[in-house]
């Protein structure tokens, strides 16, 4: 695992972060629930909990789907390519490419569309950045930079867990059940 420059993290003593969705996206509950699940995967292993708030401007983590240039100097590029990006602590911006064919639930490996991307898989990865983790070369880890279309990869690996616990410590209720693979299911998909 790696960290960002200077190892930025949320302030010492932080136990709860709020998140909100860009109201302009008008996301349905099924989509919001995906993010809730993704946040909980990190909360299970470390000391930070995430709570949804309706105040986008006041939220610690601001989630939005955008296309092309969207004001942060990092334009999205269309189908596949770059799927999402998130910023290091304590910025909190979490942007996803609105041009992707996002699948919110179900078995994405059965999707008939070759460009289908599992939303939760990408969300779990980006939350790692929001917490302060960089990319890793451990292919099975969540923080590995690439993910193929029609693939689901949501379980934190040892590398991910060790990284976030280095930053914030372990959830006292967390029991280490060695994770040998982060993929619940997968297939070759597009690539």
């Amino acid at each position: 695992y790696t960290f960002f420059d200077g190892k930025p993290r949320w302030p010492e003593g932080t136990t709860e972060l709020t998140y909100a969705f860009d109201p302009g996206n008008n996301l349905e509950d099924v989509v919001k629930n995906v993010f809730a699940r993704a946040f909980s995967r990190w909360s299970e292993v470390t000391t930070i909990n995430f709570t949804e708030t309706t105040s986008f401007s006041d939220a610690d983590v601001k989630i939005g789907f955008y296309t092309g240039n969207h004001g942060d100097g990092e334009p999205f590029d269309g189908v596949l390519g770059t799927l999402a990006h998130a910023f290091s602590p304590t910025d909190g911006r979490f942007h996803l490419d609105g041009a992707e064919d996002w699948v919110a639930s179900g078995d994405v490996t059965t999707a008939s569309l070759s460009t289908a991307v599992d939303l939760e898989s990408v969300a779990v990865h980006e939350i790692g950045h929001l917490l302060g983790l960089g990319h890793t070369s451990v292919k099975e880890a969540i923080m590995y930079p690439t993910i193929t279309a029609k693939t689901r990869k949501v379980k934190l690996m040892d590398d991910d867990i060790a990284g976030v616990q280095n930053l914030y410590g372990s959830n006292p209720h967390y029991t280490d059940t060695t994770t040998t693979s982060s993929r619940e299911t997968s297939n070759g998909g597009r690539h």
Partner: protein
Amino acid sequence: RMFPDPSSIPGWLSSHAPPGVWDSYRNFTGCQRGKTYEGLSKIKDYFHHFGYIPNAPPSNFTDDFDDALEAAVKIYQKNFNLNVTGELDDATLSQIVRPRCGVADIINGTTTMNSGKSDTNTTATSSTKLKFHTVGH
């Protein structure tokens, strides 16, 4: 586009999936150092964006397969556990065209991904994108 589940994807859409934005990079398979290939500058843009070519030229990148590109390819191959050849071989291009996170891999010209040990505490130090992150706030 957002689909609640795979079954909600319309059938007509499945047969009209557009190519990924990086799929054309496969055309550069087999390109070698010292030669010029039309459009190769786009690969350089890719490597620059993700931190593998730290310094961008004042004007656009050339289409030359130069030393900087070869060095970038080697670091990329190391980061992604590929054979380190410095060539745009099939395995490397297959990795490059995969969808990915927009956050950079390389910081200050130092590889941050492949520390050799999964439990090594490696601190990323900078990159084009991360620099943007830290300066921005």
